[in-house]
């Protein structure tokens, strides 16, 4: 305990957005210090029962996804916002925590605040807490992602006015109404960027009889993906394995096709927003109607998503500045507020 405290002197307080797609770390006083994919490449030694070692973590590991030999497996240890592989998550966190600490003299032991989906169970939260502690954290706090996203976006969460935030991550989308530093209503749907990619893969297989990988689907989404029909139609050329011929073929997709492909997951998100508005107390609903809904997370970068929700709800919808880092930044700010005003200010665990 004493050694951990001593090591804590040489460590920075960290806020970790442990996302399904990306892990972001905000170091107190330094800003965002790490933004890497939540991917780990595991090498299995030859022979039965051979040792498993970490071959690569983060960006390097993501480049291996779908391109690994038999003895290496590139995996994403988080699924739908929660831990799917505890040991690998712990290793990944350990790697990231070491990476953000420059010193190598003393093993870092920082205070860590981890953002968790509001729909996660106690068991899932416990797993995240244990994982961070196992990675060397001195103290571990958990904060719900919508609260962290709202703080990071700059919403006036401490006011007696309703603020609505929609955080669309890789695995989940969280919608919440916040007032007076507390969550009045929150809901989490297991739809996020990954489901968008899967929908594109599925669409291409169904309509073109061609199989494309997740990485290609993500590239399509980022380049021509759209949530609302626009005036401009964009096109992209992609390569995939033709299922009938069994050989790679090149073909062209346009943004309207991708819009069609994304209809199902998008309607799930819109449904979650509408359900939240239905459940919101009238006074807070009026505040939201007056000021609008704020979008955060990587999903908010999908073109015209704000316009889709705006049209569907009739409320102003705004995309936060730098939506990808809102959760991590909000967690960092929450850590500062905890120090200033005490831990009871937020419902951290």
């Amino acid at each position: 305990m004493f050694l951990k405290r001593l090591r804590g002197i040489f460590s920075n307080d960290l806020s970790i957005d442990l996302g399904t797609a990306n892990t972001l770390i905000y170091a107190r006083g330094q800003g965002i210090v790490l933004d890497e994919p939540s991917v780990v490449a595991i090498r299995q030694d030859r022979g039965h029962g051979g040792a498993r070692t970490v071959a690569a973590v983060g960006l390097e590991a993501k480049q291996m996804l779908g391109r690994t030999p038999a003895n290496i497996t590139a995996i994403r240890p988080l699924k739908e916002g929660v831990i799917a592989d505890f040991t690998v998550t712990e290793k990944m966190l350990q790697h990231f925590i070491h990476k953000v600490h420059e010193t190598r003299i003393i093993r870092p032991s920082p205070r860590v605040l981890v953002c968790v989906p509001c729909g996660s169970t106690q068991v899932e939260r416990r797993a995240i807490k244990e994982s961070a502690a196992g990675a060397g954290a001195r103290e571990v706090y958990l904060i719900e992602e919508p609260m962290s996203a709202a703080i990071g976006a700059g919403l006036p969460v401490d006011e007696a006015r309703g603020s609505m935030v929609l955080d669309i991550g890789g695995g989940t989308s969280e919608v919440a109404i916040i007032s007076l530093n507390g969550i009045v209503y929150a809901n989490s749907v297991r739809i996020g960027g990954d489901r968008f990619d899967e929908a594109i893969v599925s669409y291409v297989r169904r309509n073109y009889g061609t199989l494309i990988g997740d990485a290609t689907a993500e590239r399509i989404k980022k380049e021509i993906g759209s949530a609302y029909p626009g005036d401009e139609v964009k096109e992209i050329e992609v390569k995939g394995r033709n299922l009938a011929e069994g050989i790679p073929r090149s073909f062209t997709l346009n943004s309207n096709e991708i819009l069609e492909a994304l209809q199902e997951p998008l309607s799930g998100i819109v449904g979650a927003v509408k359900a939240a508005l239905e459940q919101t107390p009238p006074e807070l609903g009026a505040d939201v109607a007056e000021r609008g809904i704020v979008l955060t997370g990587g999903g908010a970068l999908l073109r015209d998503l704000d316009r889709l929700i705006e049209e569907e709800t009739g409320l102003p919808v705004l995309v936060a500045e730098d939506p990808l880092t809102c959760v991590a930044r909000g967690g960092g700010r929450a850590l500062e507020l905890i120090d200033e005003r005490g831990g009871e200010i937020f419902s951290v665990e």
Partner: protein
Amino acid sequence: MNALLVAEGDGETFVRQGPGAYLKAAREERGWDVTHIANAMHLDEDTVEALEADDFESLTSPVFVQGYLRKYARLVDTPSEPLLRAYRDLRPPDESEPRQNLRAAAGKPEMHSNHAFVRIVSFVVICLMLGLLFVWWQGHLQDAEPGFLERAMDRIGGEEAASPEDAEPLPPMPAGISGDDVVQPFIYHGEETADPARDEIETAEDLKPTPGEAQTVEQGGAGETQAEPEGAPAVTEAEASDQTTVAGAPQAVSEGEAAARSATAEDPYRVVFHFDRTSWVDVRDGNGRLLIVGEKGGGLSEQLTSGEPPFAVVLGRADAVRVEVNGAPFDLAPHSRKNVARFKLDQGALGLN
């Protein structure tokens, strides 16, 4: 009012107005009224008017204002970044800005963990802690295994004693020679000694010599012999330490001294532990063999008659035990610490010299 930079095509135009006023001008250029914009943005007309009047104080928090400006700029087909920059210039400092900005404004240099001073301090602290850990470990080792070091030392000593040089029989010395390199008048061997000479000694002991009997040690090529002729000289314990009787040179001593010598010869040594109250005891001989061990109840007495000295003794409750060596009380006080006595009974203490 700050200058607002708006990029227009390849050139740049400086507009001396706020972002709201610029957007209003763009709207009017297109012939749209406020209601059109308010409907498109799903906002109240009042909010749009406040936005166009650059009256940001009456609007809600900056995150919303920035969102409105971005959306309005998109509607009038204008780049939003210059407008947002102009808004940030006009906006009063926000309390929710990250703390590091305040630190930078205060101009305080921030010391990171890679700073030389921090590294030196951490190195010193680590050295200090390692030192403390070593000291603690040493103390812990001694507490956990009492007599461990002593046993190790005794074992080394025993090996040295059993070395071939020592085992070799000493050449006969002329009578009357005394000093540091004296030959011991009485040689005691442990039970485990597989020396033929030892059997002879035991045989001699079994003879139970009477007081006044002379003790002779004959050392030569044939081995070690011991004879106790009648009227042979005896040596007092005091003299034994610095004076030796050599074979063929009997020396007469006083009657009292002879009596003392006789007691020793009967039984080489006699160590008795009297336990007044319950105490823990651990007695090991020179080979590390346990002779007496365990908890002894009050009123018990344990006698030590066998084993090869020196004896390593540990008494767990020193004030509850009395020790007698050859009938004389042995003072435990100098060897006690925290009521645990640790001492060694060597040949000198046992009166075997």
